[in-house]
Structure formats: structure tokens, C-alpha cells
């Protein structure tokens, strides 16, 4: 009979901890990474947006429509919207987890926040597409 390998886990967490999901956030590694990646992406995207927003100060609506009509603007605007709302949802999730202690209230607040972020993101995306397509 050959040797059987011992069960080997690469995560620094006990099996019980993993099952019970201890702590207010329950799990965090994916959240941590997503927050960093979205932050990194937002650096150039924000700069790009601020640059164009400044160039469109006081502009008539047609100028904005003309700018948004280019595929580059549409793509970058969509990237900005998606990244911003994802980053925002992650950040607000951390805030809610920290300050709301009652289980039901925290769960409700998290759901409401995610729903709001999703709806706002969709509204923004549809608006951008309406202008750009």
C-alpha cells in the first residue's frame, strides 16, 4: 500500500475557521486584492476623466456628446464607471462591517448598498452607451 499524503492546506486558517467564517467580514483575501487592483486602475482613469472634465467646463451639451461619441471615450468611461462602483462597493462594505454590529442590520445594509451601487453603475453605463453608440 503506497503512502497516502496528509491533507495539505495552503491557507493560513483552520478548517473550523474556514467553515464558520469567523469575524465580521467572514472572508477577506479576494476583497483585499480587488480593492488594490481597482485602486491601481482608478489612478490613470481618474486622471483621464479629470483632464476631460476640465476641458468640458461650461460646455454645451453637444460638446459632451461629441466627446462621448468616440469609441475611446466610451470604453474608458465604461472602465471608469465599472471600476469606480466596484471600488466604492468594496470600501463601503468595509465601513458597514466596521460600524454596524447587529447581524441583521449589517446584512441589510450590505445588501442595500450593493443594490444601490449596482443600479447606479447600470444607470451610468446605459447613459454612456446611449451617448456613445
Amino acid at each position, binding site marked *: 500500500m503506497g503512502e497516502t499524503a496528509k491533507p495539505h492546506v495552503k491557507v493560513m486558517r483552520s478548517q473550523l475557521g474556514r467553515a464558520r467564517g469567523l469575524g465580521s467580514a467572514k472572508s477577506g483575501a479576494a476583497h483585499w486584492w480587488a480593492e488594490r487592483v481597482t485602486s491601481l486602475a482608478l489612478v490613470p482613469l*481618474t486622471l483621464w476623466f479629470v483632464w476631460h472634465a476640465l476641458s468640458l467646463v461650461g460646455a454645451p451639451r453637444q460638446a459632451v456628446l461629441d466627446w462621448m461619441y468616440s469609441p475611446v471615450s466610451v470604453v474608458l468611461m465604461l472602465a471608469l464607471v465599472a471600476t469606480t462602483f466596484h471600488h466604492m462597493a468594496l470600501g463601503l462594505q468595509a465601513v458597514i462591517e466596521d460600524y454596524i454590529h447587529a447581524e441583521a442590520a449589517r446584512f441589510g445594509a450590505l445588501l442595500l448598498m450593493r443594490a444601490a451601487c449596482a443600479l447606479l453603475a447600470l444607470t451610468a453605463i446605459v*447613459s454612456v452607451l446611449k451617448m456613445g453608440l
Partner: protein
Amino acid sequence: MKDARDALMVGRATDGRVVRRPLSPHLQVYRPQISSALSIFHRLTGVALSAGTLLLVWWLVAAATSDEAWDEVQGVVGSPLGMVVLFGWTVALTYHFFAGIRHLFWDAGYGFEKADFHRSGYAVLAATVVCSVAVWAVGLSLRY
């Protein structure tokens, strides 16, 4: 946590009354330092920016909808209160941007020495002031 009563900070006094367990004072005793002040400010600006996305979405919807909607949004944003809010939002965005970059450096492992920590903190504050003022100076001087 050994005792479930810790979760609710509830305990019993010696005569049996249920009392809230005392919390060690922190906000009342610790002097704000560059580390704690910038940290909470990062969170506050994050929340403020989140509220500001409502304005951004309204702006995009108005641009996509009609000239009347557009004029309405531009009017609100251009009003004195609107300009104050926009300025506050710009400061929040600038601060959160630079403080966020400081965070990313920490995540990569750089800048934890006490001297670096303080220097980067003051650098973030300086960059915030300079860039907010610069962006607004440019914005106010540019009229389409």
C-alpha cells in the same frame, strides 16, 4: 472571545444589576497624529466621494437625455451651493487619490519607517492642497 457577554458589552455588577461594561477611552485621550488623522480622513473622503457619485450619475443621465435636463444639471452645479459642493468633492477626490497611492506603496512594502511615514503623510497633504487649487484655478479660468 471567551464569553458571549463580551459581544454585547454587558455584564453584571456585584449586586446583580445588568450593566454595560466600561470601554477604555480612546478618542477622548489620544491626541490625533498624522497616522490616525490621515487614516480616518481617507475613510471620510471615501464615503463623501461615494455620495458624490450620485451627482456624477445624474450628470451623465442628463447629458444622455435632453438639453433641458442638461441645462438643469449645469444650473444646479453652477449655483453657489453647487460650486461649494463641487469644490469639496474635488478636495475629497484629490486627497483620497494621493492617500490611496500612499496606501498602495505600503501594500508593496515600502514606507513603513517612522520618518518615511511622516514625510509621506505631509507630502499627501501638500499634494492635496496644491492639486485641488491647481485644478480649480484651471477650471475657473477655462470657459468653453
